[in-house]
């Protein structure tokens, strides 16, 4: 079931590719950067990508939680890719690495930083090579994608970077989104365009980013596309970075850029993955309505919507059905309704000014989020680990989430995992193994255990650490539990015990 939609999408992709090649015989030639202007181009395009990403993330952080059948479906179909970093990154091809004096083994590099989401102290810049994530070596962007996906929720992470041969470490917050709907600026598009791809991503064009006269206007266009993606009644599975490379459809910002330099990015192919479905008038109006509410709750000015829609209908007279501006009377209706809605929203209390870093909480330096404290006899436990969960998604083990639970009555700490999608694990030739290690405050490994997934293993497995084995004096301090699945780290968290 999990992989069935992929084949349907592949068919759609092929169909839409045929359709687009029939409709537009004069296909644009393969895009390539002018070698002399390569650096300027990359910097400019990254800057545009950052503009779009900053707004998309800000809107997505304000999304209401999904509920109902969609949530149920998404647990099956959507990989838990809702965590993202406050910068964009990609594998840089040799030419750029050389230009920026990066060493040969460091493929992944930062292509742009989201300033609104970075702590003031963090000194990371576009062009820095990425060397490690939470102490694990990073060799490629795909590698980093996986680490981010598997990182504990709601935590701060440690990022190692290198600039001109000098390495440094940074503490950065992870962005936790209700749903990650990436907004990518496609440099292959020469017209004013915004749309949704077959993979539920938002595609924008450079001329569109020039067309908008304020960030509020851009926020409306992105919010409108977010509304479309959310309204899709099926959850599409995002492509991995590797799959995109094979399909020659870069996205998530960076890949477009790298593809342009190496000449592997093909605008014709990229066009083929755009959603060719034309939304109905009613759907457009519904998306506008949702977009305005989202803008309001994310702290953007909803009045910008009517302005940008009207200007579009003035400047762009295109009447083709997939055009960004529809023929009358839809545009007029959209403007009138946007004005009405914006007025209604203006009457509502304004939301608090946006500050991501406030929401991210403070960094304790341990990967812990400080919070309430639980007292028990001579011990207190200081950690949000009580409610923490880590999620993972592995082809052979299915998906699942791990939790850390503290039981005061038994003086036990338990790391347990709940698995779903075990069907595939049963068929797997090689069953992955969970490996759990417990470390005392003195950083000594006090206990380790293995368990295998597979037939008969059940959907719940746990590893217990009996605290009563240790004298009270030795219990105070920061404990650590480290879990790997098939050799890959899926959870690494610390919890603090203190003398009551």
């Amino acid at each position, binding site marked *: 079931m999990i992989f069935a939609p992929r084949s349907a999408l592949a068919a759609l992709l092929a169909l839409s590719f045929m359709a687009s090649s029939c409709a537009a015989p004069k296909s644009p030639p393969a*895009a390539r950067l002018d070698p002399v202007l390569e650096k300027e*181009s990359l910097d400019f395009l990254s800057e545009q990508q950052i503009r779009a990403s900053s707004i998309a993330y800000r809107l997505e952080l304000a999304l209401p939680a999904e509920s109902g059948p969609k949530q149920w479906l998404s647990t099956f179909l959507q990989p838990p890719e809702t965590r993202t970093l406050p910068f964009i990154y990609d594998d840089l091809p040799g030419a750029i690495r050389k230009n920026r004096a990066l060493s040969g083994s460091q493929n992944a590099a930062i292509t742009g930083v989201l300033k609104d989401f970075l702590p003031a102290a963090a000194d990371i810049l576009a062009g820095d090579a990425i060397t490690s994530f939470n102490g694990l070596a990073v060799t490629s962007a795909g590698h980093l994608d996986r680490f981010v996906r598997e990182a504990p929720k709601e935590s701060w992470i440690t990022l190692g970077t290198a600039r001109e041969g000098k390495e440094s470490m940074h503490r950065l917050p992870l962005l936790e989104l209700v749903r990650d709907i990436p907004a990518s600026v496609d440099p292959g598009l020469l017209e004013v365009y915004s749309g949704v791809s077959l993979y539920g991503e938002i595609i924008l064009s450079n001329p569109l980013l020039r067309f908008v006269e304020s960030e509020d206007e851009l926020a409306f266009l992105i919010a409108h596309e977010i509304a479309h993606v959310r309204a899709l009644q*099926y959850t599409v599975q995002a492509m991995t970075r590797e799959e995109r490379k094979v399909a020659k459809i870069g996205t998530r910002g960076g890949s477009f850029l790298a593809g342009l330099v190496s000449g592997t990015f093909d605008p014709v192919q990229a066009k083929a993955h755009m959603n060719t479905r034309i939304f109905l008038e009613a759907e457009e109006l519904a998306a506008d309505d949702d977009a305005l509410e989202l803008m309001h709750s994310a702290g953007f000015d909803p009045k910008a919507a009517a302005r940008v829609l009207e200007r579009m209908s003035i400047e762009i007279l295109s009447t083709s059905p997939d055009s960004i501006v529809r023929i009358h009377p839809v545009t007029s209706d959209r403007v009138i309704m946007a004005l009405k809605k914006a007025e209604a929203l203006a009457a509502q209390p304004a939301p608090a000014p946006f500050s991501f870093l406030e929401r991210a909480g403070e960094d304790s330096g341990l990967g812990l989020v400080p919070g309430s404290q639980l007292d028990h006899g001579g011990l207190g436990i200081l950690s949000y680990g009580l409610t923490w969960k880590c999620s993972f998604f592995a082809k052979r083990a299915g998906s699942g989430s791990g939790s850390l639970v503290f039981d005061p009555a038994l003086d036990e700490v338990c790391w347990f995992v709940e698995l779903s999608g075990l069907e595939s694990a049963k068929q797997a030739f090689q069953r992955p193994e969970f490996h759990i290690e417990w470390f005392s405050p003195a950083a000594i490994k006090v206990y380790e255990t293995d368990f295998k997934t597979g037939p008969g293993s059940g959907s719940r497995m746990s590893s217990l650490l009996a605290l009563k084995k240790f004298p009270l004096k030795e219990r105070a301090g920061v404990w650590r539990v480290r879990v790997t699945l098939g050799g890959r780290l899926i959870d690494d968290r610390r919890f603090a015990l203190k003398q009551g």
Partner: protein
Amino acid sequence: MKSCFPTIFSFLFIGLLASACAMKFSSVTKEERSIYEQALERKRMNFYFDNVTEVTSIGYRILQQKKGEGTDSVIPILLAETGKAIREMFPDSPEEGILVVGVLRGLAPQDLKAIRGDILEALDGVPIRNEKDLGKFMKENPDKEKIRASFSRHGNSWEEELPVVRAAKKIRFLVDGKTSEVAAYTDGKEIVAVSTQMLRFAAGEEELTFIIAHELGHVLEGHRLKTFTEKPAPVTAAASLGALLDQLAPGPGSSAGSLIQGLAQAPYSQKMELAADVYAARRMKELGFDPAAAGRFIKRFAVELPATQKKHMLSSHPTSSERMAALEQFAGKP
């Protein structure tokens, strides 16, 4: 079978969604819509009139020749025959007549009283009712330096003196809103068009002057197209703003939409492109603009829209670096 599931599902849901939405959003009344659309139409007309006036002003400043030179005479006012669209916007205008659309900046006297919406009644006492009359008058009086023009507004008439501009060629300038691409193009004979998004892309008057001068360079240097697969939509002399007005009434199957198809991709040779650049840079210098703006524009275009830089072998345009180098070489000449 399995793979059909999401598709069928989605169609089902789209149907439900559509009917649900139709109920939720039916709050725009016919009256509201018609009031808004009238206002929108005025804004749209003004937008195109403003921009076509600006592009034409710049164009004729480039085309302007010294006294005694040049082949064509034009008056520095943009005019249009009153048609249906014009009469909706200017209800006072007569059924037959010529209306002022814009006054060419830098070519007409600054204190000219005539403004958009005024009616041109006569030139030197000869009544002018349509473009034919206008063309005939200009042809019969080729060497005039000044013309007395009578205008009227709300029934009040007055006369003003207009200078005659000697131009190297009579060109029709268009603002193309049918495409949302960043583009400027020419048919090599009588039309130069700039897209609305190119107007947005061009940073300031200097760059816009370069863009228009480059296209005029193709026309004046007599560049012929290597191949011409698609003929551009015929734009007759009488339709001065007619083509523009077609654009203002969007509807499926409108012929003006095809204008860009044949022209935007007109394949001039690399040599011709470089020659047009050099012509543009020379004219900019003569008009007192900084010719370095040309190089800046070419560079910005390549940096911001890399997909326009085609692969070398297939290219009709030389690479931006070649164009910049050619311009630098030109700047070095005394």
